[in-house]
């Protein structure tokens, strides 16, 4: 028995050791496969940060860009994509999106707590070349940045602690939130901080002496249910501190042109504060002189618009650029509602987009056409490309991760069959974090 046992033991040992070694080798090899590089060879590259490379290679590994350039060598292990005649550019970033079931309401909305990744809309964005979004609430709150990886819902949010967001109207209550916030008047434990405006422009809280006792009681009563000590409203305080120091953009949605006048008065006193305004072309046209003074970054839809109450058509992005203002584009993909009657937002809001009732399909196949039209109408090409990529990344505070074709940045990129701004080109592939997430089979 003993001999027999020993023999068995020996045999088992002989089998087990190589088995373990083999298993480890396979695992290591598998790991190697996982980390295998992807190389895009011979493409024109819009680097954004370093101009256009007429012919070069891009190497991607581990979800990051490893190398970019005309002379970059392709690693032996790389899966090579031949891209001669094609153009590679960074993925498009939308700095102002409401996708993902995010709304407003309450005292403070932290998008990362509300975000709902299981939505078809994200898949629909990929054919437009959109790879990242900053999701914005519709009332005071904090944005979150996502990468569009619908197959990985758990990791879609790449920055839970985004920018402070504030909708502003031309109303006392609304402007007070801004004034108090910038003056760093803290939100007290009993909800004595800046009050949350709604579009309707709700009145503001108790600390001011201009309210009747009755109003104060009402407010206190409303808050009692909404806000425990150190409740949601105080969540804005550290964000205001960052805004005042100029460490983070304040994202503001302005209701109209008048709001910009008052916003300008307030912000002129805070030259450190960086503001990104979500607005539209006719508002920019109307308030250009004010905007020039406090120089916000403008988040604009990429479209030809009309002068207010006139038939004259304007290229607001160009006008803003020529006035020395920075621009980021939003809303490249039409909202579902707007997609059916075309890209037109009603009479007088003519979008520079292919027409009408095949638009949802056509637009997705000519994603950058609206931007190409603005370029044709005088917006410098490099400014247009910046407005799609690096500028939004800067607004989000993620310029070190997104927005250009540089080593160590997230491998979020687009491969076009030709010049991205030529409507005859097609978006062929979209890569997000090193993986191809969309392929155009048309």
């Amino acid at each position: 028995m003993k001999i027999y046992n020993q023999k068995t033991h020996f045999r088992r040992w002989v089998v087990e050791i190589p088995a373990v070694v083999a298993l480890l080798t396979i695992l290591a090899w598998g790991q190697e496969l996982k980390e295998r590089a992807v190389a895009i060879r011979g493409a024109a590259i819009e680097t954004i940060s370093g101009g256009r490379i007429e012919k070069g290679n891009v190497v991607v590994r581990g979800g990051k860009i490893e190398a970019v350039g005309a002379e970059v060598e392709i690693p032996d292990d790389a899966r090579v994509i031949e891209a001669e005649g094609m153009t590679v550019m960074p993925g498009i970033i939308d700095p102002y999106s409401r996708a993902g079931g995010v709304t407003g309401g309450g005292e403070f909305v932290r998008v990362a707590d509300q975000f709902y990744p299981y939505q078809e809309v994200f898949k629909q964005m990929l054919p437009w070349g959109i790879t990242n979004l900053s999701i914005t609430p519709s009332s005071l709150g904090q944005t979150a940045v996502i990468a569009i990886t619908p197959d990985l819902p758990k990791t879609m949010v790449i920055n839970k602690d985004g920018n402070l967001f504030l909708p502003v109207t031309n109303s006392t209550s609304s402007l007070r939130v801004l004034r108090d916030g910038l003056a760093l008047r803290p939100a007290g434990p009993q909800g004595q901080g800046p009050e949350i405006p709604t579009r309707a422009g709700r009145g503001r809280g108790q600390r001011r002496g201009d309210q009747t006792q009755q109003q104060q009681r009402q407010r206190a009563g409303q808050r009692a249910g909404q806000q425990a000590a150190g409740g949601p409203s105080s969540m804005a305080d550290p964000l205001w501190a960052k805004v005042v120091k100029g460490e983070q953009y304040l994202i503001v949605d302005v209701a109209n042109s008048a709001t910009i006048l008052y916003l300008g008065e307030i912000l002129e006193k805070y030259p450190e504060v960086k503001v990104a305004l979500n607005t539209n072309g006719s508002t920019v046209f109307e308030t250009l002189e004010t905007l020039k003074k406090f120089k916000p970054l403008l988040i604009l839809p990429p479209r030809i618009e009309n002068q207010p109450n006139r038939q004259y058509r304007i290229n607001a992005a160009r006008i803003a650029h020529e006035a020395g203002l920075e621009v980021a584009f939003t809303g490249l993909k039409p909202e579902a509602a707007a997609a059916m009657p075309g890209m037109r937002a009603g009479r007088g809001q003519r979008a520079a987009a292919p027409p009408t009732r095949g638009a949802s399909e056509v637009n997705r196949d000519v994603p950058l056409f609206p931007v190409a039209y603005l370029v044709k109408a005088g917006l410098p090409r490099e400014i247009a490309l910046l407005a799609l990529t690096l500028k939004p990344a800067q607004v989000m505070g993620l310029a070190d991760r997104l927005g250009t074709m540089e080593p160590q940045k997230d491998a979020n990129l687009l491969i076009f069959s030709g010049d991205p701004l030529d409507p005859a080109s097609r978006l062929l592939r979209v890569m997000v974090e090193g993986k191809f997430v969309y392929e155009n089979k048309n």
Partner: protein
Amino acid sequence: MLRETDVYFKTRIPAVVVLLITLTWSVAAANPEDKSPPRYAVRAGKIVTCAGDPIDNGTILVSGGKIEAIGPRDQIEIPEGYKVLDHREMFAMPGLVEAHSHVGAQGGFNDSVYPTVSGLEIAHQIQPYNDALKEAIQGGVTTILYIPGSGNNLAGIGVVMKTRPGTAEEVIIKNPGCLKIAQAGNPERRSSGELGSGRAGMNWVLREKLRKGQRYYQKWLDYEQGRTDVKPEVDLQLEIFRPVFKGEIPVVIHTQMFQVVMETLRMFHDEFGLKGAIHHGTFDAYRVADEVAKRDFPCCIGPRVTVMDRENGQIVGVVAGYYARGARNLFVNVDATGSTQEDLHFQAALGVRYGWPEEDGLYGLTIRPARYLMVDDRVGSLEVGKDADIVIKNGPVMDLRSAVVKVLIDGEVVYDAAQDRRIY
């Protein structure tokens, strides 16, 4: 002139007389009562004539509202008194022709109480140069077929008109311009139970009407050709069928989806042998384009110029879908009901993007719809003797980004982006 003046001097006619003559002549020339259109020499880097090869570095002479001469710059001398419109960096092309438009007036175009209203003339409600037509001009559209809607099976009589300013009489170039029919789609929306609200009912109504019209036409033909002495009674509801059956005006047939398009071909081409066209022809109707091709029946495609093939999730260009199956007499429409008429060129450019040959795209915006509407003696191409409807664009015609910078209609500048409206 110079020599004559020299002669006068030589014959020592007093300088006062010469001065008087000169003054009189210049006053006459500047007389504001003189309404004859100005004379122009239009220069362009490339002239897309839609009648033969394009002309590089060309000149078009415009006089009396017509094209007087056209050719390469070195072959055309610009006579005195012609104002030069210098667009040597740009493209010139014929004014665009839209064969399916509802913006000849602003407002209602559906009178759909009865299934058929064959006496209704849309021409009676024209509003020349209305806001939608101004936008049409800014998109280079100079001629439209203005038609009633598709709320009922036979919606009335369309009119071919220019988009320029003027009285209705001045802008109409052909009336009656067409007979408007609607099969499938819109007429079906009426509440069920009414005659013509289902497809079988609609086809029954239309056949009945066409047979009646055909008998009426035949009666008049017999009378005109002396086969009978009995003069037929004029019936205003049926008058339109005389030019229709004579082939003098086309039948515009609103039709879509392959089943209905097949019925359109059977009824209008095979049974009644009418001149007409499939209008819209959208959704999956391109799948029966080989049947269209067999009959060489014209198709006016739009406004949906793409369709999603649900079997494989691919986008299909509708015009290219027809072309690939052999159909050749293809042109496009926007079906404008509001401020969309200016987008006509997009339709062709998108057709080209999905595989329609570029030259076809150009013809599909100009000469083909003009021929279909039987007004190609006046519009649709840049040729001597035709109306001087000229569009100047700042880039290639089939590039979606190119914009219109100047438009001439009937020899007059009706739009100049630099003056009339600042763009961008």
